[in-house]
Structure formats: structure tokens, C-alpha cells
């Protein structure tokens, strides 16, 4: 089996779609947060793959990946904190029940 750019891109696209699907389907906030992580990791795979397989003038793809990992971590940290607050206020982490504002 040959693992080339195409295969990696397909993998990342699949991951991305899985994440997106999860966000749309899952109702648990933690699960949604995880799905977002999956999406971001799909992107990381893309960057690394492009940087690895294609003749790039620099390592900007990998740099971008590192930053993207960091940002994802920060996002998760903030997300967790907000989910605590949600749980504190709503006593649930089901996103369907978190629906005070409408209109």
C-alpha cells in the first residue's frame, strides 16, 4: 500500500467530516468540543501532509500546525471552563436544553 498525499488528504477530509457530523449530531457539550478538536486535527494533518509531500519553500505548514495545536488547546481550555459555567448555571450539558434566548 502506498501512502501518498492523496491518501492523507482523504484521511483528513474524512476526519473533518466526522467532526462536522459530530457537531451537528451530538448533544453533549463535551462531545461537541471533542468533535471540534477532531476537525482541527484534520486540518493539522493537512498542513503536515502538504509540507511533507510537496516541494515547499519553507516550513510554514509545520509552523502553522504548531500554532494551530496551541490554539486548539487554548480553545479547549476555554471551552471546558465555559462548560463548567454552563453546568453551574443550567445543571446540564445537553445543548438542546441550553436555550434561554430565542427569537
Amino acid at each position, binding site marked *: 500500500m502506498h501512502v501518498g498525499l492523496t491518501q492523507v*488528504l482523504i484521511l*483528513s477530509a474524512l476526519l*473533518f467530516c466526522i*467532526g*462536522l457530523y459530530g*457537531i451537528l449530531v451530538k448533544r453533549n*457539550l463535551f462531545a*461537541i468540543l471533542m468533535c*471540534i478538536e477532531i*476537525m*482541527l486535527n*484534520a*486540518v493539522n494533518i*493537512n*498542513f503536515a*501532509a*502538504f509540507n511533507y509531500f*510537496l*516541494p*515547499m*519553500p*519553507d516550513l*510554514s*505548514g509545520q*509552523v*502553522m500546525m504548531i*500554532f*494551530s495545536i496551541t*490554539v486548539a488547546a*487554548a*480553545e479547549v481550555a*476555554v*471551552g471546558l*471552563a*465555559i*462548560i463548567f*459555567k*454552563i453546568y*453551574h*448555571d*443550567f445543571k446540564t450539558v445537553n*445543548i438542546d436544553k*441550553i*436555550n*434561554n*434566548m430565542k*427569537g
Partner: protein
Amino acid sequence: MNIYILYPEITVLLLTLLIVIMDLLLPVQETRRSLAYIAVMVLGCLFISLFYQYHFGISPYFYNKLFYFDNYAIFFKQLFLLAVIFTIMLSLDYADDLRYSGEYYAMLLFSLLGMMVLASANDFVTMFIGLELMTISFYILAAFKNNDENSSEAGIKYLIMGSVATAVTLYGISLIYGAGHSLDFNVLAAETRFFVPLMLTGIVLLIIGMFFKLSIMPFHMWSPDVYEGAPTPITGLLAMGSKAAAIAVFIRILFVAFLHTANYFLPVLAVFAAICMIGGNIAAIKQKNIKRMLAYSSIAQVGYILVGFCAASPQGIKSVLFYVFLYIVANIGAFAVLTVVDKQNKGTDDKAIAGLSKSAPLLAMVMTISLLSMAGIPPTVGFVGKLYLFLAVVEQGYIWLAFIGFIMSMISVYYYLRVVKVMYIGKANNDYINVSAAIKITVIISMLTTLLLGIWPQYLSVLTNFAAISFAL
């Protein structure tokens, strides 16, 4: 490596750290106002010093042209400084009620830092960092009110939608990287192979992501909830700062990196602008909560701003800058008033602002003028801004867009005037609203700017012209 051009960012960063440290040193019960004063002072000095950085000739850049310090960036940096300074001023009273007011100011400054980076970003890495620094700070700020369900809800909704937008944007960027072999706008601009499917998909995803961030109409569903739930000063900053910053970088992306494809995406943008103007204004009509109404109205405002994009000319960009400025000024006024009302009457719906003209005539006046400026009624600066926008776009042949724009801005008067009506003839909740000096200063500055620039926009016009010619269109 001329590091001095980073001085605004470095100043803001040091200021933020200083505030974090001071916050740690202060005893818990003590008010954090001193931090706010320090921040306002330093940012004010920075704001003034940036006037001296406008320059002719080649723009200084930092590290391989990844970070530009051109007039355009300076203009936007000043805008963000303005927005944050006034946000701090109008949240002085508000922040006293918060449990972590020190962090509140620190997060404001972090978001400012993100915006400032965005204004200068000339490659996707820098842009991404700026964007996320700003957005993540906003996630926190949106959920900042303690024991407030709406605030938490706003925070989580913003987080989820914002993260998805980030992921989509990033995915787009990664495809662009794969097709264009670089993340640098300048290099991408030299790239001519735009019609590779990979590149096109990337551009489309990137634009969709940006539309999410800008809450352009079909991608706007998060914004009304977030605007309603977030603490009022933060709603203001969301409406002004985050949008302006996203616009700042969006212009660079479209008109530096993907200038070649302009002919293809401009009609699309025009359609989205029309959707925003129509949808935003019509949805705003039936809103009872003023923050929510302003959320929809801000969707419409972004529609107007997109109109300026469609012109794809220096005049277009100049009109966008002009409009963004006036939009920020108008929002400062409106949200300062809402902040006071929210604090006094515990809400921002019609009941809360009823009879404001009796209990606080100044606030009612400022609110009216700010709203009229958003609607584009003379003699407020909103009129001049709209005129610039539509002049620029009609010159490029989009007369239908101008037509929709003018009609919709007149329809928007309907719901703005509804607020005015409630303020002027509604029954007041309390006889007298005490308005603090900081708020008074804020609203008076906002009002005077709106009116004076509306009558005599010469200086701002020159400044925006100066900033807009940073682009080789």
C-alpha cells in the same frame, strides 16, 4: 529586523501583563478601577502616538513581509484602540459588579492585541494567531457575567460556532497552502494557478469561515444570541472590534492574496451584501430586545460594508474604512447608553429604555443620534459613510446594490425610530438615572464625533484615503 514597528503590540502586551500582575497584587475586595485607568491612559498615549506613524512611501514590514505596518494597519489599530478605550470606559461601573474584574480588563486587552495583529497580518499564520487571540478572548468575555444563564449560553454558542468557523477557515487555509505552496499573501498574490480545484475549494472554505466570523447573513445564526447574552459592553466590542478586525484582514486576504480572482468573487460578495442588507434589516424589525436588534442591525451594517468590498477600488476600501470608523463611533454611543440602562433597569428590552428621555435626556439624545448614524440619516456621519460606499460601488456598475442599500437603510429607520419612540414617549421606570462621568465623556465624544464628522468629514476622509492607498488595486 526592525522590531520597533511592533511597538503597539508590545506595548499592549506589556500593559496586559502589568494588569494581570497588578490584579494579583491587589487585595481581593478592592475595586479594580485603577487598572482600568492605567489601561485607558496607556492606550490613549498609544493612540495618539500612532498618528505620528502615518507615512509616505514604502511601508515598513517585519520578518519577511509577514507583518505590515502600513497606513492601513495603523488606521485599523487606531480604530481598535478607540473601541477598546471606550469599552473600558463604559464598563467601569459594570466591571465593579463582576467577580473577576481584573481579568475582565486583561481579556479586553488580549482581544485588542489580537485585533491589532490582525490589522497587520500579511500571512495566514499571523492572521490565524491574531484571529484566535481575539476570538478566544471574546469567548471568555461573552461568558463573563457570573451567575447569568444568558451569558453562559452566549459564551458556549459563540465558542462552538466560532470554533467551527475556525476549523473551516483553517481547512480552507490548508488547502490554499497545498495549492499555492505558501501561506504568505504576497507569494500567493504572485501565484497564478488559481483555478486548481484545491485552491478554489480552499478559497471558498476560507471565505465561508470569514463569513461566519463576520456573521454574514446565512452564517449569522450565532450572533443574535451571543449579542443578547453577552455582557453589554462586550456586546458593543463584539459589534465594533471583532467585526472591524475581521474586515481588516478580510480586505487584505481578498485584495492582496486573491486579487487575481477578484472578478469571480466580487459578484458573490455583492449577492451576500444584498442578502445581509435585506435580511438583517427585516429581521431587526421584529426584535424586542435592543441588543438583539443591534445584532441584526450589525448584520445589515456588515452588508453595507461588503458593498464597499464590491467596489474593489481604492475608493471602495476607503469607504469601507470610513464606514467602519463611523460604525464604531455610533456603536460606542449606543452601547454606552445600553450599558447604563442595563445596569439600572436590569435589561435591555423596550421596558428598560422606556422614558429614557425623561430620566436621562443626554443618553436618549446620544442613543437617537447613534442609531440615526447607523441608519445613515444626515447630519450624522452615517450619511456621508453610506454616500461614500454607494458612490464607490455605483461607479463599478453595481447600481442595483446601491438601490437596495438606500432602500434598506431607509427601512432600517423604522426599527431605529421605534427605539427612539419608546425612549421619548414610554413611561419611565425611574425618575432619574445617575450617569457616571466616564460614561458622560464617552457618550459626548461619540455624539460630537458623529455630528461633526457628519457635517465636515474632511479630515477623516483624508485619513482614510491615505490608509486605503496602501493597496495596489
